[in-house]
């Protein structure tokens, strides 16, 4: 059983940030959450992570209501990649990744923990700077180290339990090659009985790597379906306010390929705008 959200509502102060949002992700699936700024993507992820309280509705992990999970039990099967990865203390990158093993460590790390950390660092291609101090790394490098930490946390199956991976804009600061690497890794984890939820901005990458796309607008669910049913000119115009040409991907006709060419109704509407 995967992640399920049923009609959740989040209210902070007087503002309703999420209203009546429902979806489900099964183990083996990647769900990409898209939407314009302020649509509630991060709020949704925080609600799933438990850092933001829902005032209505239910969030279930493996069929069990979020509030009924014990913190340490949940930490063994659910990992969250944050958007913020500041750390002002001179830890080595490798030590940061090792912190991901915390829920599994009783007294002290053992060989298995070290091995898992090395493998997860390798997975995000961070092994070459793993020995450097974290505060000296570049933004993209830090992001990868944090990803390695999160992967190390749910690296292995816990007695056949499903695992859950929540990624908040995991590729925002990465170069194109590592954007693909990160999403590929997410896919690969999905293949290992993991339900993945990722907040993304890039529609093409979302279409390429996600099984389902959830689009939020003004805190409400706009649409939630398979990529080829979601991405069309009308939806893109209504949600994102841009005109786009949607065609079929040359490499895979099932895949939509989105070519945005300007703000809807604005200037520079045509492809020749620059000329």
């Amino acid at each position, binding site marked *: 059983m995967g992640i399920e959200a049923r009609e959740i509502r989040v209210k902070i102060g007087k503002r309703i940030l999420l209203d009546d949002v429902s979806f489900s992700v099964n183990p083996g699936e990647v769900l990409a959450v898209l939407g314009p700024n302020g649509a509630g993507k991060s709020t949704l992820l925080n609600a799933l992570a438990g850092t933001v309280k829902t005032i209505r509705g239910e969030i279930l992990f493996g069929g069990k209501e979020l509030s009924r999970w014990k913190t340490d039990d949940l930490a063994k099967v659910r990992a969250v990649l*944050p958007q913020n990865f500041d750390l002002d203390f001179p830890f080595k990158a490798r030590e940061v990744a090792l912190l991901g093993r915390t829920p599994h460590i009783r007294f002290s790390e053992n060989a298995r923990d070290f*091995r898992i950390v090395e493998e997860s660092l390798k997975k995000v291609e961070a092994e070459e700077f793993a020995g450097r101090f974290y*505060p000296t790394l570049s933004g993209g490098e830090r992001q990868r180290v944090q990803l390695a930490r999160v992967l190390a946390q749910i690296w292995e199956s816990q007695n056949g339990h499903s695992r859950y991976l929540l990624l908040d804009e995991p590729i925002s600061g990465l170069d194109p090659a590592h954007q693909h690497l990160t999403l590929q890794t997410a896919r690969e984890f999905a293949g290992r009985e993991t339900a993945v939820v990722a907040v993304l901005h890039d529609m093409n990458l979302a279409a390429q790597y996600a099984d389902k796309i959830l689009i939020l607008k003004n805190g409400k669910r706009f649409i939630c379906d398979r990529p080829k049913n979601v991405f069309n000119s009308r939806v893109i115009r209504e949600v994102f306010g841009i005109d786009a040409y949607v065609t079929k991907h040359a490499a895979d006709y099932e895949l939509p390929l989105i070519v945005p060419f300007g703000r809807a109704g604005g200037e520079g509407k045509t492809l020749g705008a620059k000329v």
Partner: protein
Amino acid sequence: MREAALIEKTEKGSESLKASDYKIQEWRGLFPGWIFSQKTLVFGGLGLFLGAMILIGIGNGPVEISPGQILAIVARKLDISIPVEYARQQESVLWAIRLPRVLLGILVGAGLALAGTLLQGLFRNPLAEPSLLGISSGAALFAVGMIVLGDFITFAAFPDLRLFALPLAAFVGGMTTIFLVYRIGKRRGCVDTSTILLAGIAVNALAGAGIGFLTFLADDTQLRNIAFWSLGSLGNAAWQNLAVAGPLMILPLFGLKNLSRRMNVLLLGDSEAAHLGIEVNRLKRRIIIIVALTVGAGVSVTGIIGFVGLLVPHLLRLTVGADHRILLPASALLGAGLLLGADWLSRTIVAPAELPIGVVTAFIGAPFFLWLLLRKNNGY
């Protein structure tokens, strides 16, 4: 190659091998191998430094006691006789003056350094210090109140309590402020560190105003008392003080058990730590209680001593990194050693008079800290 072989080995018979073997084998190439010997080096060095400071602290002064004599005097107490001659006077100086002073120095130095390390971790800010939370100034306010208004307060009726009135007031003051600051910082069941920090600043200012007002009321003798107390001194050390403050400072050390690994996780951030299965609020509460007890009890006997809590963790992070499993014990050792050193300077520089120790720590600590800051711009 070697890594591949190791991974294979791990998969074959991992559980039967001891984790420590692996640590050394697998991590030597990754974590530079010297970390293991470095750890021993660090603790060995710090231990030696503290030992030397203890010997100087006990031995040096108007009455000189050599290390051999110290050993003989202490052994004598345990009914072991060592053939080293010493004078009656040396024995009584050691027991009545030097030893309690050194013990107090160790406790307070270690306590301040530990508190600094814990707070810097708690606030994820390498500039945090015990005085930042208002613990020291709250304690100072109550102590100054006791100095100035003590005669009006009912202790006249209980002369026996007089001896403890000042430390007790300081302790109550420290605990009250930390409790207040903590309550303000706690919103909707969440411990919000930045609010705590700001509340600490406000409480500091308020306590400062209170102290100023009391200073205005005080007469000349009281002023001298206040000045001495607010600059700190180990001169009040006596077995009675130690008996009161000692347990309060040693007790929290038991709370440090299993804390270091969680402190490391907390550095990632509150929600990140929660996602890794840490009960963040409970952990923060525990840290704050430990800090309040050690600092409150320490300040109550010695007055305010600055810079130890700020400097020691910084210095150590430069050499041993950020891992609290090494950092916490190391900072206790270094803090104790440094405070003993500062106390020795404070007694010898202007002998036979005595400088307040807070002056010494600030004179040495502040420039040194500036140097650290300027250096830090070059990265770690």
